[in-house]
Structure formats: C-alpha cells, structure tokens
C-alpha cells in the first residue's frame, strides 16, 4: 500500500497532518486527518477565579480571541446567574461584529481568494495574497489591509487590547462608549458595508462569472451531505452573539433547537487514538463513523451551515444576497462545500450592516454597563457563533466562584469529522490510477478543508496566506517514490 503524507499543513493553533493511503491500483484506500496539538485549557483553568477566564481562554486562539472572550463572558454571566443590561449586550455585539469583519475579510482575501482569483492550479508561488493583489491591483490590496486595520481599531477601542480583548466582567462590560466615539464607529461601519458589497462583487466577477469554478463548486468532489448547525434569533434569523442553536437535517428540516444550557443533551464527542482533537456528533443520532447522509451523526458548523439552519438574515442587504445564493445554487439546503466561501461573504455583509445598526442605536452610549451580582449559583454555559463554528464554554465553580471544572467545544472542533471526510472525498476525486499527483492536485485536495476556514488555517488568515506542504508517496516498504514540495 502506498502512503502520501502531507506534513505539515499549518495548524489548528498548531499543526495539521494528512495521511493518504493508496491501494495497489493507486486509488485512495483511506485518509486520516491528524491534529497533533493539545494545550489542555480545560484542566489548567481549574482553580482560577471564574472572572479571569474570559481573558485566559481568549489565548486559545490569537486569530479569533474575541469569540472565546464572548462565549466565556456569557458562561461567566450564567455562573453568576445574571443577565447583563441591554447596553452591555449591545456593546459586546458591536465589538463582535467588528471581530467578524476582521476575520472574514482576512480569510477571504488571504486564504480563499488565491484559489479563485489566482486559480486553483496556478503556480504555487503566485497562489497567495500577493498574487491576489497582483490580479486585483495594489489599490484594492491596500483597501483590504485598511478595512481590517479599522476593524482591529474598533475592537481595541471597545475591548482595550486589539487582540486579547478585556471587555467582559461578570454581568456586563468594563467600559462604555462616548457619543464622539460612537459617531466615529458609524462612519467606519458605513465603510464596512461598502467594502462588504465590493467584496461580494469581487466574488461575483472572479468566481460566479467563471463557468469552470461554478462547475467545480457544484459538481466537483466537494459536496458532503451533512446536517447543519447554527445560532438563530427568535425569528430563526442568523445571529452570532445570542439565541438558540438550531440544527436542520440534510433535507433542511429542523431536527431540534436548543438553549445553551441544554447542549449536553444534543452534542457528544468521540475520541480516536490517532488525533489530539475530538470528533463531536449529534448525540440523538449517535456516532456512526465517518459517513455522510441523513442517518449520520456528523454535522457541520460553518457559514454555510448557519445559513442552511436559519430562515434568513436579519439585515436587508444580506437577506437579498442570501436569497440570491440559494436561487443560484438550487435551493436550500446547499451541500456544496465550496459554497462556504460565498456564505462567509454574505455573513461579512451582515456583520457590517449589524455593526452599523448597533452603532446607530440610541441606547448604545448608555451608562448602565453592569448587572447587580448576588450569590453565585456556580454553573453556566455560554454559546456564541465563532467564525469557524458554534462555540460552547461550560464552567462549574464553588460558591466563591473558583473554577472546579471546564468543558469547551471549539468552533473548528465541530467540523473535525466533516473536514476529514471532505479531504478524503477530494483526494478520492482527484487522485486516481495513472494520474500523476501534481501540485495542482494537491492544492485541490487542500481546497476541501480550506473552505471550512478551520482554525489550523486561522494561521493562513494572514499574509501571504498559504500553507507549506510536502507530499511524499512511498511504497509499502517505506521507499520514497515521489516527493513533491509545493512552492
């Protein structure tokens, strides 16, 4: 049996590794996606005062720290049994929308766009953000960097630290917003809306107007029939900060909708001895292995699953784009993995519009920033949508608020089984008997997981946005047959 090792792809706050086994015919026999890293936050948060956790768990990820800070902040509120005042909730959501603008912008331009704007089998040296800027022009490249910078500045203003926000305190936030600061954010958010519209236009021009790409999205080996998870508001519209988790099946029918405190009834995690990352699945269906379809327990939690799981978007421009996407791709739900890129940009537009709405809200400059705290019930769950999937933080404390136990299910983790299966499907689709495994083919395999924007590519959210890859094909005895270095 031949073996293809892709190591390293950069990581989920660490490294990722793909092992592809080929049978004697040169066809894919099996694929293992391994996550070799672990830090153990669940354990070392024990013993800390619970109010310290929003800042400590933010260090799980330096690219999406705001998600952990928010999920944790909500879990801490629940530990204290309080609901923050409306001003505090709006400030948190305002921060969070800027966080989404920063992350989704970085992902599209630095990570996804090279595959489409430059081309999936373009020379690897051009398949990065520099190549993208080469195609779209330096002026636009500078604009992208500028919009991401502005999003970072809004986060710093509201959260103190532009990366590791320190905004949340039990029952609210530490800092309010002045009228002058609000006026400034309004102008910046108007800029985000224009920028998001422009980005959707880039997607239309470079992807949707290219028949080859549309064919690849719809008919390539990138489709995976899975259940879809996403947070929705009371009208079943997409929301990132608050609401209930809704799961729809592969046909788009609601399976269930749960509150954060009920997550253990709906989600469980499977362990494999060959990865440091667990595999969540729908508990009511059970772990049936790495299979797709209506009877599988595997789900995904991505921009596309969020749109699939919701009845629409809560802002007008994003809603129009939502309708357009489903009309173009043949109705709900969509199972084309590469459509995650489109869904992500619709979310970018929603985040920009919501950012503007919140900045214009009369109440947002209010002074009531914190709820009164009483006794400490001692257990709480906080759920938000991270850019990379539904994020759950669950804390237990003693009556002094000292942490006794922590359980966390991170955004990307939800998609671990789905990513493994997508990689396998793409590998099976492209690596065939008699086909020389080229750099282009390797990139097409990578595109399968890149669509998920997994946190191991949080990394590649960045300039110039490409993962290093070595591909080795060995005989069963370990003899090296072919070595491919992607440059």
């Amino acid at each position, binding site marked *: 049996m031949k073996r293809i090792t892709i190591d390293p792809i950069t990581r989920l706050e660490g490294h990722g590794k793909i092992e592809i086994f080929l049978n004697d015919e040169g066809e894919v026999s099996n694929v293992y996606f391994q996550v070799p890293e672990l830090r153990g936050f669940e354990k070392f948060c024990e013993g800390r005062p619970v109010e310290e956790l929003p800042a400590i768990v933010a260090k799980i990820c330096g690219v999406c720290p705001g998600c952990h800070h928010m999920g944790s902040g909500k879990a801490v509120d629940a530990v204290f049994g309080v609901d923050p005042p409306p001003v505090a909730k709006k400030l948190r959501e305002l921060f969070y929308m800027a966080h989404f603008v920063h992350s989704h912008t970085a992902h599209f331009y630095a990570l996804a766009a090279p595959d489409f704007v430059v081309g999936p089998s373009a020379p690897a040296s051009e398949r990065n953000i520099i190549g993208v800027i080469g195609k779209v022009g330096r002026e636009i490249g500078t604009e992208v960097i500028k919009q991401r910078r502005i999003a970072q500045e809004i986060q710093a203003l509201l959260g103190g630290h532009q990366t590791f926000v320190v905004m949340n305190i039990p029952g609210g936030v530490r800092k309010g917003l002045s009228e002058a600061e609000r006026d400034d954010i309004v102008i910046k958010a108007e800029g985000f809306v224009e920028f998001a519209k422009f980005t959707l236009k880039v997607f239309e021009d470079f992807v949707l107007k290219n028949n080859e790409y549309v064919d690849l999205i719809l008919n390539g080996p990138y489709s995976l029939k899975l259940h879809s998870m996403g947070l929705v508001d009371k009208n079943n519209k997409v929301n990132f900060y608050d609401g209930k988790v809704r799961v729809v099946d592969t046909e788009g029918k609601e399976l269930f909708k749960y509150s954060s405190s009920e997550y253990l009834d709906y989600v469980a995690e499977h362990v494999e001895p*060959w990865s440091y990352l667990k595999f969540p699945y729908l508990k009511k269906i059970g772990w049936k292995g790495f299979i797709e379809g209506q009877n599988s327990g595997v789900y995904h939690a991505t921009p596309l699953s969020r749109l699939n799981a919701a009845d629409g978007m809560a802002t007008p421009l994003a809603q129009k784009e939502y309708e357009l996407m489903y009309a173009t791709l043949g109705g709900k739900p969509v199972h084309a993995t590469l459509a995650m890129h489109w869904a992500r940009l619709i979310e970018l537009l929603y985040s920009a519009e919501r950012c503007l709405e919140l900045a214009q809200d009369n109440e947002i400059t209010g002074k009531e920033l914190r709820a009164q705290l009483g006794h400490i019930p001692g257990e709480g769950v906080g759920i938000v949508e991270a850019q990379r999937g539904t994020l759950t933080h669950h804390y237990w404390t003693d009556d002094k608020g000292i942490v006794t136990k922590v359980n966390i299910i991170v955004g990307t983790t939800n998609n671990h089984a789905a990513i493994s299966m997508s990689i396998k499907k793409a590998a099976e689709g492209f690596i065939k008997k008699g086909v020389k495994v080229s750099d282009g083919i390797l990139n097409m395999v990578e595109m399968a997981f890149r669509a998920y924007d997994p946190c191991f590519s949080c990394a590649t959210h960045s300039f110039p946005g490409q993962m290093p890859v070595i591909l080795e094909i060995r005989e069963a005895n370990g003899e090296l047959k072919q070595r491919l270095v992607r440059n």
Partner: protein
Amino acid sequence: MEGSKAKLKLAVYWASACGGCCVSVLDVHEKLFDVIAAADLVFWPIALDIKYHDVEEMPDQHIDLTLFNGAVRNSENEHMARLLRKKSKILVAYGSCSHLGGIPGLANFSTKEDILNRVFIESESVVNPENILPQPEYEVKEGVLNLPEFFNDVRSLAQVVDVDYFIPGCPPQTERLLEVFVAVVSGAELPPKGSVIGAETKTQCDECIRKKTENKRIKKFYRPWEITDDGYSCFMEQGVICMGPATRAGCGYRCIKGNAPCRGCYGPPAGVTDPGAKMMSAIASIIDEKEPEEISRVLEDVVDPAGLFYRFSLPVSLIRRKII
C-alpha cells in the same frame, strides 16, 4: 520572497502558540509593504510556502533573525527549537509563551495525565467507554500513524536552547517589534546577549496612565466585580490586585485602557527575578494594618495568588510547577 543578498533574512515560527504573536506581526498593517522591502521572509509557516525540510537543508546560521513564538509543549516544538537555533544568527524568544512559558505554562499546575484524562475521558461531552487516549504511535489497518509526544512540563524557549534576546508581551506590541526590526535592519549596535528588548526596564506603575495617590493604604482586597471601578484611580488603591508593580513596562497599557488590571504578560522588570515575591512586597506595603492577624485576614482576600502572580511565567518561576 526573493531579494538581493543585502536584505535581512527573517524567519517567524510558532511552537505551542495561539497565533496571536503572528497576528501582532500582521498588525504592522500598511507597513507590511515596507517590511517586505527590507527583509526576505525565509520561513513563516503561518504565511509562506517553506517547509521544515527546506529549513533543514539551509546552511547553519543562514537566517539572520528568527522570531520564535510559543512555548515548548511537545516533541515537535522541541525539535523545531533546536533546528532554528542552529540555523539562526539571532534567535529571539518572541512573546510571553516563548519568553516565560505564557498561558500554556499554567498547565504546569497539573500533570500530563491530569490533562489527558480531563480532555478525553472525564469531559462531560465525551463518550469514550474504552478510555481511549491519543497515542504517539498507533497502528491502523493501513499502517502506523504518529503524533508528537505530549510532554509533562511546558518549557520556555531558553529552557531548551540558547536564546539571544527576549521580546516580551502577549502578544508583543507591534510598534515595539517595528523598533527592533528597524534597529536590526539598520545595523545599529545591538544590546548584550540575553537582554530583554522591545520593552522598558522599569515597572508598569512608573508611568501608569491611572492616578496614584502617595501613601494610600487599604484594609481589604476586592475581586474586580465586587467594586465599581472609577475608571481613573490606581487599581491597587481601589483594592483590586493589579500586576503592575511586578511587571515590566512597554505594552502601551492596553488592558488598563480597557479598564482591566494588569496580568503581567510583559514579565518582571529589570532586576526582578520572581514576580510573586515582588507582588507580595507590593501587597504588604499597601495594607493598612499592623497586627499580623489583621494582615493575614486582608491577605485572605487575594484569591488564587499563584495563578495570578505567575499567570504568564509559571515554567520559569521559582516554584516552576506543582509538586507531583
């Protein structure tokens, strides 16, 4: 990233890290074009298509400057630390994890077994009746799969290899990184080996943006949520523990600007080896009590002192780890 020979060869690597240090490099924003003009990035897994084997094939000392972020948590991290030491003229421990062990270093309060058990067996969402744990080597029907070995102890970079300089911070402030970068590119004389660079020598308190009253004393410490912060007075004087007295200045008071007390990510100031000892003396000097019993009572308000004083520095601290 081709360029002329005169350009600086720069590498950025992450070990057991979160990505925040790499984001701090990206936060040069529009100046990124200037950085690229002055330096050739020869290795940066977050962003560039250059592999481990490419680094292995480089001549020794091929890289002029390596910014190494992240702690040493597993066998792969250790291998990369040794490799990059060999290949780099100047090796910088970049950021709190590499400098002091950082937040992942809090794991030294527990053991490897405690962590694996909690995550893979005890976790409330895990269904693992056979108590399966990830294995460094595991045989599947198609062949053997390998994972790096998860060590019992988290270590800082200098506990593994010889380090030339330390740039502190979680993450380091981007403006400070640019200053160091400009100094190296311009060929300015560099400070003695082993120096902390890109930061001040004094404490956070020396130039804090919050107001401090001389000789203010307190009778009780509070948790941050037990008081209403006035938004401008010294946290310690309001009775909220702030790591400012035991922390090096240079971060730009980022957390303080967000109305949160310092947690010590820049590490101890010049001349201080242990932040815990320094904090104990700062705390003792602000307590407005004379009787030992009264002082003990006030000190009881300080919850989780070890987790607070060594929030970012447990692996390099005097206590190092929980005694097993």
